C-alpha cells in the first residue's frame, strides 16, 4: 500500500529548492507554535483544574507580555514576508536569454508553440538546464499553468499575455495541471512536461517542423500586407519594426512604453490605443482576422527582426510528415495555420 503514497512533490527546478526551504521553515514554526499552544492548554488544564486549584487568581494582564507576543510574531512573520517576496521577485522576472515557448490555453487543452516551430498539445518538451520562459494567453476563460514539480504557477488570462519561467534540473515526466477553474473538463485539462537531456532534446527538436514560428510569422507578415507599411529598408507609412522589440517607444501622446509582447499584440488588435509618435493612426485593426496562434507567430517574427533572426527557420526536410508528434487526444480541428 505504501508503494503508491508519495508525501512530497518531486523537485525538478531551481526554484523548487528555495520554495521547499521556506516551506520547511514555516512548517517548523507552525509545528512549534501549535505544539506550544496544545502543551500549554494541557498543562494548565491539568495543573489548574477545579479540584486541584479551586480558587482562581485574578490576573488583569500585563502590557509587557502583550507587547512581547505582538512584536515577536511580527518579527517572525517579517522573515516569511521578505524571504517569500525574494523568491516571488525572482520567479516573476524571467532571465533575458531564456528560451521562449508560446502557450495558448483553450477550454480544456494546452497548445505549445516552440520558436523553432514545433507545436505540441498537452505535452511540453523542454531541455534540462536551460531557462524556459512561457508567454501565455487564453482564448476563452482564465486558466492557470501549474507544474507542481517546478513549484511554478501563473494564471493565463484572455486578452493579455502573462508569462512565467522555470529552469528544469532533473529529466523526467512531470504533471501539468490547470489550477484555475475553467469549466466542465477543468480536471482533464492536464498534461505532461517532459524534461529531456540537452542531446535528447536536440534530437527531438529536429524531427521536422514546417518552419520556425518566426518564419510562419513572416508568412503572415506578407499575407496580411503588414510589409507594405512597415518596411524594413526605408521609412514607410508605419514605423520600421527592425530591432524594435524590447526598446522603449515614444507615443504620440507623450507616453513611452516598452515594446514587449503585450504592446505588439495590442498594436495588432487595437492599433489606435498606442500610436507611435510621428506616425498617423491609419493602421486598420486586425481583431477577429488573426487568431491567437497567428498573433503568437507575428510576435515571434517581429521579435526576431533586427537581431539577425535569432531563431533562423529550421530547414524543412519532410513537409508531408505530421507536424506534431502524435498528440494523445485527436484535436477536432487539426488546422495548423500553415499558409503553405
Amino acid at each position: 500500500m505504501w508503494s503508491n503514497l508519495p508525501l512530497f512533490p518531486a523537485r525538478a527546478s531551481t526554484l523548487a529548492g528555495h520554495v521547499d526551504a521556506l516551506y520547511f521553515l514555516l512548517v517548523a514554526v507552525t509545528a512549534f507554535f501549535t505544539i506550544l499552544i496544545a502543551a500549554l492548554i494541557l498543562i494548565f488544564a491539568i495543573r489548574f483544574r477545579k479540584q486541584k486549584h479551586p480558587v482562581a487568581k485574578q490576573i488583569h494582564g500585563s502590557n509587557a507580555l502583550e507587547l512581547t507576543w505582538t512584536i515577536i510574531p511580527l518579527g517572525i512573520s517579517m522573515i516569511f514576508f521578505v524571504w517569500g517576496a525574494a523568491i516571488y521577485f525572482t520567479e516573476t522576472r524571467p532571465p533575458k536569454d531564456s528560451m521562449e515557448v508560446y502557450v495558448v490555453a483553450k477550454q480544456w487543452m494546452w497548445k505549445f508553440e516552440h520558436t523553432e516551430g514545433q507545436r505540441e498539445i498537452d505535452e511540453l518538451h523542454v531541455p534540462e538546464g536551460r531557462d524556459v520562459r512561457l508567454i501565455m494567453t487564453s482564448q476563452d476563460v482564465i486558466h492557470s499553468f501549474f507544474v507542481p514539480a517546478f513549484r511554478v504557477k501563473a494564471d493565463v488570462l484572455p486578452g493579455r499575455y502573462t508569462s512565467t519561467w522555470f529552469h528544469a534540473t532533473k529529466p523526467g515526466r512531470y504533471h501539468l495541471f490547470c489550477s484555475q477553474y475553467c469549466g466542465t473538463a477543468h480536471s482533464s485539462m492536464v498534461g505532461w512536461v517532459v524534461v529531456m537531456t540537452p542531446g535528447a532534446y536536440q534530437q527531438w527538436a529536429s524531427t521536422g517542423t514546417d518552419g520556425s514560428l518566426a518564419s510562419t510569422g513572416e508568412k503572415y507578415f506578407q499575407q496580411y500586407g503588414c510589409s507594405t507599411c512597415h518596411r524594413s529598408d526605408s521609412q514607410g507609412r508605419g514605423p520600421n519594426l527592425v530591432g524594435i522589440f524590447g526598446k522603449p517607444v515614444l507615443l504620440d501622446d507623450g507616453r513611452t512604453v516598452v515594446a514587449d509582447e503585450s504592446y505588439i499584440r495590442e498594436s495588432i488588435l487595437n492599433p489606435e490605443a498606442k500610436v507611435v509618435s510621428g506616425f498617423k493612426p491609419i493602421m486598420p485593426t486586425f481583431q477577429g482576422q488573426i487568431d491567437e496562434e497567428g498573433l503568437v507567430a507575428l510576435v515571434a517574427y517581429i521579435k526576431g527582426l533586427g537581431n539577425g533572426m535569432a531563431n533562423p527557420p529550421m530547414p524543412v526536410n519532410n513537409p508531408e510528415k505530421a507536424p506534431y508528434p502524435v498528440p494523445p487526444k485527436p484535436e477536432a480541428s487539426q488546422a495548423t495555420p500553415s499558409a503553405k
Partner: protein
Amino acid sequence: MASAAITQDEKTNYLNADYGIKSWLLTTDHKRIALLYLISITMFFFLGGFFAMLIRLELLTPAGDLVTSDTYNKLFTMHGIVMVFLFLIPAVPTVLGNFLVPMMIGAKDLAFPKLNLASWYVYMLGGGWVLYAIITGGVDTGWTFYTPYSTTFSNTNVVAAAVGIFIAGFSSIFTGINFIVTIHRMRAPGLTWRRLPLFIWSNYATSVIMVLGTPVLAITLLLVAAERLFHLGIFNAQLGGDPLLFQHLFWFYSHPAVYIMILPGMGVISEVVTCFSRKRVFGYDFVALASICIAVLGFLVWAHHMFVAGISVYAAMVFSLLTFFVAIPSAVKVFNWIATMYQGSISFETPMLYAFGFIGLFTMGGMTGLFLGSLGIDVHVHDTYFVVAHFHYVMVGGMVMAYMCGLHFWWPKITGKMYPEGWAKLSALLTFVGFNLTFFPQFILGYMGMPRRYHAYPPEFQVLNVLSTAGASVLAVGYVLPMIYFVWSLRYGQDAGPNPWRAAGLEWMTSSPPPTSNFETTPVVTWEAYNYDEIDKQQEVPVAS
C-alpha cells in the same frame, strides 16, 4: 418548538408568552427571531453538508466515476455558496448574536426590531432563491463566480444564484446596522465600553465589516447578472474589460467576509474560556482592540487571493506585507486565551472542550494562513488542496467549533433545559477527531500539487483522499449527534435554572428562558467584565434571602 413542560410555576417567558404561527412569523422579539434563524441556518448547514459528503464520496477514486464532471462542478459550487453565504456568514451573529446582544447590554430588544424581522425574511427570500437556483439545475461557476467564465461561458443559473446572494446580503446589512446602533445607544446604565462582554466587542467589529463590505459584493454580483442579462460589458474581456477587476471587487468583500465568520466565534470563546476558568480575561483591552484591528486590517489584504492571477509584482508585495499584519491580532487573541487559563480553576464541561478544540485548530488554521500570505509559497500552493485545508481549518475547525461551543454554552439560557453532558462530550471529541482526519491529509495533498475543484485526479493522490473521506464521515456523525440530543433535551432535558454555569454577564441574571422583555427592571452595572471572583465569593456565602 413545542413548549417545554416547565416544572416550576407556569412562569411566562418568551417561549410561552404567545402561541400560534402568527406569533412566530410576525414576532419582533429578538429572541424568537434568533430561534427562527437557528432553524433555517441548521437546515442550510445540513444541505451544505450533504453536498460536502457527495464531493468526498466522488473523491474516493481517482477517476471521476460517481457523478459526471458537470454535476461535480455544481456540487462544489453549491457547497461553497450554501455554506459561505447561508451558513458561515449569518450563523453566530444572527443566532447567538440576535439572542444575546440585547440581553448582554441590558436592553429590552434591538434598536430596530422590525428591521430585525425583515432581516430574517430577506435571508429566507435570498436562501429560497438560491434553493430555486439549485433545484432548477444549479450553478457551476464556483462560489467565487470568476469572470469571464461566469459572465459568458457558463450556461447555468448564474443570475438566479447571484440574485439570491444579493438578497441574502441585505440580511447581513440589516443585522449589522441593528447591532451597531444597539451597542452604541442602548447599553444599560453603568455599562461602559470597557465593561462590555467581549462577545459584544466581536459582534460590533463583525457588524462594522458587514455594513462596509457587503454592498461591494452586492454591486459586483449585480454587475455579473447585468452582464449576462443586458450585455453590460464591464468585465467582458472581448471588449477590453479586465477580468482582474471582478476579482478585486469580489475579494474586497469576500476576504473581510472570512473575518465576519471568525470574529463572532472568537467572542464566544472569550466568554467560554473565562467562565470555565473562573477568571477575568487576560488583557481585556488588547483582546477587544484586536477585534477592531482585525475588522479594519481585514479590508486591506484582499489581493492575497490573486498573487498568481496576474496582478503586478509591486501590488503583490504590498498585499503580502499587509496580510502578515492582519495575522498578528489573531495571534494576540490566542495568547490571551491561553494566559486566561493560567492560574484559573478550570472545569471541563462541553463548551470548554469545544473551546480547547477551537484554540488548537484555529492556531493551525491561522499559521497555515502565513504559508499562503508568503508570496514564494503561495505561487506553489495557490488553488490547491493546501488552500482548501487552510480555510476549512479556520472555518470548520474555528468558526463551526465556536458555534457549537456557543450553542452548548447558551442552550440552557435559550431553552431553560440542559443538554446531556455525556453525549455532548462524545460529539465534541468525534468532531475534533473527524475534522483532523478529514483536513490534515489535504495539507499534504496540497503541497504535492493536487489542484482544487478537480473531479478526477492522478492515482498517487488516492490514499490521502480516502483518509480524508473517512474523516468526513466521522465529522458528519459529530454534527448529527448534537442535532438529536438538542431536540431530545427540549422534552427530557434537566431544568437549567437561571445560571447553571455560574457565569458572569447580564444574560445570566434573568430567568431561563428569559421573559419577553428580558429583565423585570433594567439592570445597573457596577462591576467590571468577567468578575468571577465576586461571583464565586457570593456563591460560598449563601445570600440571606
